[in-house]
């Protein structure tokens, strides 16, 4: 028993309810952006709960703009990353929702170490802090981000804690509070 086993009390009817929309969206994307799509994982076939669309970094903005403005997936539920410990190292993971039908979708972008990604603030202003958190935790940089600084850790911190090679034990002690840059309020 795994993720593809239907569980009645945890979104039991979702697969049947959303399959037509998922199929329509993935077919539309395959028709329009075939050169940008790397692979598409579908639930019940692959071990995932919703379709996962792997997009090339070059087509990231185009596909996401189409998903947001044309295909109804206009709600950015979550934006995070994972460290896969193999090349390409990072995956940016976006959880999108259609606020009308409540269908969900996951978009992934593969990034190698030291590679930057375009900022998504033009599409969703809420992506601002999410990108800062990804930078803080994984060290992925975003081009065009207006304020790419650490968000959870101290500004003086060294290392990116959610990378898999980050040591689990150790100290970085700061004896003075973290100063706030007055430029931020100008």
């Amino acid at each position, binding site marked *: 028993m795994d993720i593809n086993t239907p569980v009645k009390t945890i979104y039991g009817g979702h697969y049947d309810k959303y399959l037509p929309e998922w199929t329509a969206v993935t077919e539309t994307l395959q028709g329009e952006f075939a050169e940008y799509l790397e692979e598409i994982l579908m639930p019940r076939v692959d071990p995932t709960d919703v379709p996962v669309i792997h997009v090339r970094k070059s087509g990231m903005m185009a596909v996401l703009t189409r998903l947001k403005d044309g295909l109804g997936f206009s709600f950015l539920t979550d934006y995070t990353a994972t460290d896969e410990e193999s090349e390409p190292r990072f995956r940016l993971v976006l*959880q999108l929702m259609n606020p009308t039908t409540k269908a969900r979708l996951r978009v992934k972008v593969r990034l190698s170490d030291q590679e930057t990604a375009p900022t998504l603030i033009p599409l969703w202003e809420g992506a601002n802090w999410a990108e800062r958190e990804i930078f803080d935790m994984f060290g992925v940089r975003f081009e065009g981000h207006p304020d790419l600084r650490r968000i*959870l850790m101290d500004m003086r911190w060294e290392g990116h804690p959610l990378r898999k090679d980050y040591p689990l034990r150790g100290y970085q002690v700061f*004896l*003075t509070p973290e100063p*706030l840059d007055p430029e931020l309020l100008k």
Partner: protein
Amino acid sequence: MSDSNPKNFKTDLPLDVARWGIPSTYDVTVKRDSDDIFEDSKVLVNIGPTHPAMHGAFRCMARLNGEIIEKSYCEFGYTHRAKEKLGENRTYHQFVVYTDRLNYCSALINNVTYAMAVERLMGIEVPERAVWIRMMCAELARVIDHLICVGINAVDLGAFSYFLYGYHQREKAYTLIEKLCGARLTTSYTRIGGLMADAPEGWEKEVKDWVKETRAVVDEMDRLLTENRIWLKRTKGVAIMNREDCLKYSFTGPNARAAGVDIDLRRDQPCMFYDQVDFDVPVAQTGDVFDRYFVRMEEIRQSLNILTQCADRIKRGPIWAEDKRTRIPEKDQVYNTMEGLIHHFKFFMTGFNVPAGEAYTSFEAANGELGFYIVSKGGPTAHRMRIRGPSFWHYQGLDPMIRGEYIADLVAALGSINVIAGELDR
């Protein structure tokens, strides 16, 4: 101290920067004009991280023009406990206790959502009684979370006695939770595939009595504050976050519904038995402090209705899914049989394996959408344990929300979006 600092970090900042975070060179002098003394008088105000009105360790720096906030900059992270990293290095069973410390005002909802997230990856269906108890837990937690939110919001604006009405009921609810799992705040009540313990005999009847009492108290609170002229002046039209901005900033839960975003995951993405109970989803239109307060008050009533329905329909039965992988052996077995002892030892020392796969499981928590994105590559620990806390996105919306408002309304706005440091910093 220097021994525990192997890297020997030093700061070469002047003392005033180190202490206050503001260099004295920054121009904070007030320009005085003969006609209007407040014209263009810029002042920086630092609120927090340990200011009583911030309710947790947040910091907000605001640039004021007179009393108006022109720009603000919010900082947090003071309660960061590396939960996502812990999720990658603890077994799925060990992680249950960490979920309590997300939104500590409604710890039971976090427990329930986390248990669902792992069960979904493993394809486990918990028995009916466990599902009903989980639903009751979630609604009980929602009521106490909303009571504390509206209560604290009122305290910040000067209505202290109102808060005490709600707080009294909240204490009684905590006693009910204590009967369930022995803890009041950090419950750790759910287990993967079941519950820590069954609800005691007659617990649902006690909940029903409490619901009846609370309904009367909520009505009384409503009469006390909702039509109060001072309350209306302090909250109506203050700190508006309209529908478009809510969608841009990924607002969910009562804060989004206050602005007309008609999404409630209990209704729109039904899990457990929410499709079998009858409840309404209150939605307001303006998105100001008053609407957020009003939506929460109405949600308390709806949650009380759900609680009554659950208490009526709950039946005796098993609370554990009979799945060999996750079932914790009974103590009788552990102490009296060798197989039981080995099973117990293996369960707690190495944990159970979760099949490879990934899932984003979300539930309507008291503040909004709480989601667990778990990537498993097999094995007893997760490859990635992402926690989507609603407060993270709500706190981000505070800056556009309070721009152009009075400094005194910052406190009202912050209290009304109910940012909880635990799930903000994780």
